[in-house]
């Protein structure tokens, strides 16, 4: 199902967050040049057209880079911050869960999940099982 961004209604970011709140991870695509982008915008950063639609994202991605942010154990311990390249092309900052922060590696195949954190939906990624 596509969500069309119109000139009069809410902007792309709001529509993207609303879809995420309903459990659907989408990506903004440009109908003029066909390319996806992230973060969501009302005009295509590749070609400038304002014909943007949100389409369901595959959720498949690859770790482009990763860092372990060090934090004292009593404050919650170390955690991962990563940049993930979606199979559709765009990149987003996220976190890889389900594996120790230092075990997250560049090139790792990951899959998106939507969790609730600080009372808001949040996209995180988990490693794709070998052979999956």
């Amino acid at each position, binding site marked *: 199902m596509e969500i069309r961004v119109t000139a009069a209604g809410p902007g792309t*970011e709001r529509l993207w967050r609303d879809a995420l709140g309903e459990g659907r991870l989408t990506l903004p695509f440009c109908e003029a040049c066909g390319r996806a982008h*992230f*973060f969501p915008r009302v005009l295509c950063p590749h070609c400038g057209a304002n014909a943007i639609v949100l389409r369901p994202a595959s959720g498949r991605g690859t770790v*482009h*880079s*990763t*860092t*372990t*942010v*060090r934090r004292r154990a009593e404050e919650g311990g170390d*955690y991962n*911050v990563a*940049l993930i390249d979606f199979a559709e092309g765009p*990149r*987003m*900052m*996220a*976190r890889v869960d389900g594996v120790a922060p*230092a075990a997250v590696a*560049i*090139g790792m195949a990951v899959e998106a999940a939507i969790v609730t*954190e*600080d009372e*808001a939906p*949040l996209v995180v990624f988990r490693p794709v099982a070998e052979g999956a």
Partner: protein
Amino acid sequence: MVNPRLRGTAAIVGVGHGGIGAAPGRTAFDIVGDATHAALADCGLKLSDIDGVFAATMVNSMPAVNVVEYLGLRPRVTEGTNTGGSSFLAHLQWAALALDAGLCEVALITYGSNQKTGAGKFVSTSEIVPFEAPYKPRYPVSAYALAAARHMHEFGTTREHLAEVAVAARTWANLNPEACARGPLSIGDVLASRMVSDPLTVRDCCLVTDGAGAVIMTRADRARDFPKPPAYLLGVAAENWHRWVSSMPDLTTTAASRSGPRAMAMAGVGHADLDLVMLYDAFTITPIMFLEDLGFCPKGEGGRFVADGRLRHGGGFALNTNGGGLSCVHPGMYGLFLLIEAVRQLRGECGARQLDRPKLALCHGNGGHWSSQVTAILGTGETL
């Protein structure tokens, strides 16, 4: 496109520092006042001669306007564009344009921060980043760590290569009485220090200090009338591709790859002509990537380029002779201090760390998360 029209039309005639290291009990504007006083004394001008003010900070919404008020000025040009730590190199370009157009006669470019001793009161104006903040990256170090990790993955750069940049900076700082971090530092020390955001340890990160700087600039036709040799602005170029690291087009190539060649073309200089290179070293990875992007070595070779110790004092490649943001001073936005060291080297005022009669210096400023890149070329009178 290169516009050589402004080449050599303006010159830095006065420089000054204030509150370097720690300025307990002094506000950020107090040390801007100290630095401005020192820069005016350096060139023999009066406060009332300043009719162009260029300033940026991370804590004021109208920093240049605050500076005008504090100093009691009535300038005809007030310019406060904030592109992060590169702001003051960008201000060189706007000051040169304003001077050339006759909009002002004496330009002050200044910055100050008391982020160390004023800790707790330091509130950045930087906004919450909606698509990054929920993942709690530690700013700014995680943005640089993500690029460092990618550089290591793509090109085989090692933590030892990164550490070499910190060790080299320390060898210069040890010759600079103003440098805040002096004493022995080995590659082993850097590797064994506390990890902050992998692969960067606390010794891969710049200092957190107080400090202010001020630069006085006039048109070149007046510059010979001042007591000290002028440093002419021969080239300056800026380029900007993104704001936050998740939108950085390529984690291992910055817009310095465009600003650098344009600034050098405007100045009409090649790499072999440069006697001093001042690169914004917020983290040890930044000079490595800027050496590549500015064309001192091929893309990906930055780590191996620095590995032989050439950046150390006496190593043959004069980089960051003040000790850099890593070992000299880093009050949040460091770009202005690159210029002040370059001017002092070109004048021959640097004591134990003085280079042998340098004529040309390249200064490169970085702002945001590898975002705003500004390159400037300064030269002595004989390079005009």
